């Protein structure tokens, strides 16, 4: 189609971000879960710190269940998945019913995980759905702009989480160059000054442990989101 409104670009961007947030958070969560099994009872506190989420959990098991599945907590993985759904459901015609269906399936899998006695096994389905979502997006999303905005959202989220979890600098640099690449393709307005500042840090410094917070802040203002409109009548 290629005819797309400001609101739609916003939805696509956030769809990409939320899907990626579920994906990478779950990956990191799996590592944390592993630590929790035999060594460090409090590994989850460090995990939450990195994500900047307040520790509202009483103990290990409370964290495991509720960080994943508490729908009333906006920071839970299920809530994030539902946010992805909220952004996808208004974009069916752009991303196709087929691509949309993988988001629905991921939500269903999360919901079943909540009821399951072995939730970690169910999470595999969530990974499967997300991979399928991206595959379907490549195949069924006709508009290149649409695909690019989705993936631009994914890159932004990935960079944010990779820096939070102190991933190797070369990995972060690689993701950043993917993001720059997209940027030229997307053809949508974004904050050029913020890009410049990010380039100064990520491309010029050895490592960026010290600049984590700055990076996160710059990423947050890369893409301009919409103010809410409220009409008054005479």
């Amino acid at each position, binding site marked *: 189609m290629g005819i797309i409104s400001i609101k739609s670009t916003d939805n696509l961007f956030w769809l990409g971000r939320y899907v990626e947030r579920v994906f990478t958070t779950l990956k990191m969560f799996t590592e944390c879960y592993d630590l929790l099994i035999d060594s460090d009872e409090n590994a989850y506190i460090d995990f939450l710190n990195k994500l900047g989420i307040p520790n509202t959990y009483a103990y290990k098991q409370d964290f495991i269940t509720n960080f994943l599945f508490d729908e009333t907590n906006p920071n839970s993985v299920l809530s994030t998945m539902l946010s992805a759904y909220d952004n996808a459901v208004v974009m069916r015609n752009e991303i196709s019913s087929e691509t949309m269906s993988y988001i629905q399936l991921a939500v269903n899998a999360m919901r079943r995980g909540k009821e399951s006695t072995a939730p970690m096994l169910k999470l595999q389905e969530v990974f499967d759905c997300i991979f399928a979502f991206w595959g379907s997006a490549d195949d069924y999303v006709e508009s290149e702009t649409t695909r690019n905005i989705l993936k631009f959202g994914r890159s932004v989220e990935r960079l944010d989480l990779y820096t939070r979890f102190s991933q190797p600098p070369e990995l972060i640099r690689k993701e950043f160059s993917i993001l720059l690449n997209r940027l030229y393709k997307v053809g949508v307005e974004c904050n050029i000054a913020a890009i410049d500042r990010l380039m100064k840090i990520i491309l010029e410094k050895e490592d960026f442990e010290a600049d984590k917070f700055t990076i996160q802040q710059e990423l947050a203002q890369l893409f301009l989101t919409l103010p809410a*409109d*409220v*009409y*008054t*009548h*005479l």
Partner: protein
Amino acid sequence: MQRLEFSYSMKIVFSSPVVRHCFSLRCLPFSNAYQRVCELFLEVSPHNVLTETADGFGNRILTDRITQEHTDFSVYVNGIAEVDIAAKERETLNGIYKYPSQYTHCGERLTEVTEACRAQCAQKTPTEIAGVVMSELRRRFTYQSGATSIQTTAEEALAGGKGVCQDYAHMQIAVCRSLGVPARYVVGMQEGIGETHAWAEVYDDGIWVGIDPTNNKWVDDRYLTLSHGRDFADCGINRGLFIGGGTQTQTIEATVRVVK
């Protein structure tokens, strides 16, 4: 026949800027068999691509959408019109004017007025009936500004016993309609009062006859018509929608003067 020089000016000042301001103005007198606009000057500020169009009742509307930020909005219309109500022509009736509308539903009080009138209306023409209604209303209602608002219906106004031209017109219409006389609401200007005015018209043998219950008189050549409809809701002089704005202060001035 009278030659009238008229002017209408309206200004709104917003305490904070507005954007995406859409508006519809019904402030241009129309030309027809008995009212002819000879000269017209119009200024709307700010404006974008001011469009003139019509509504379902045959009124002239000016519409626009201003995207740029602004804190002032003003409209100025002035011109000369010739009015000769003796030249009114027969029109076919739109049945909608026989039925109650948003502002003119009859409750207990209006029904009581209707019944009081009905007793005096046997064998009378629609125009005569309208006259009976006008005098019945005058016995029960006094003019006082501020007693009602633009949301007040005819029934509510009558319950309060006080109000302005809008209320008089609504009550007149409500009672006439329930007596079987088709009636409609008219917004316009009248010689000398300094603001816009509202009155009613009743349908009598093909002719819409103007009646001004606020002033207890029949409409003559010194009234200039801007719009008509079922009631106030169809005749808003300025209907608008915008984002932002804070508080608004609105000033309106309307003058009509007989010229040679």
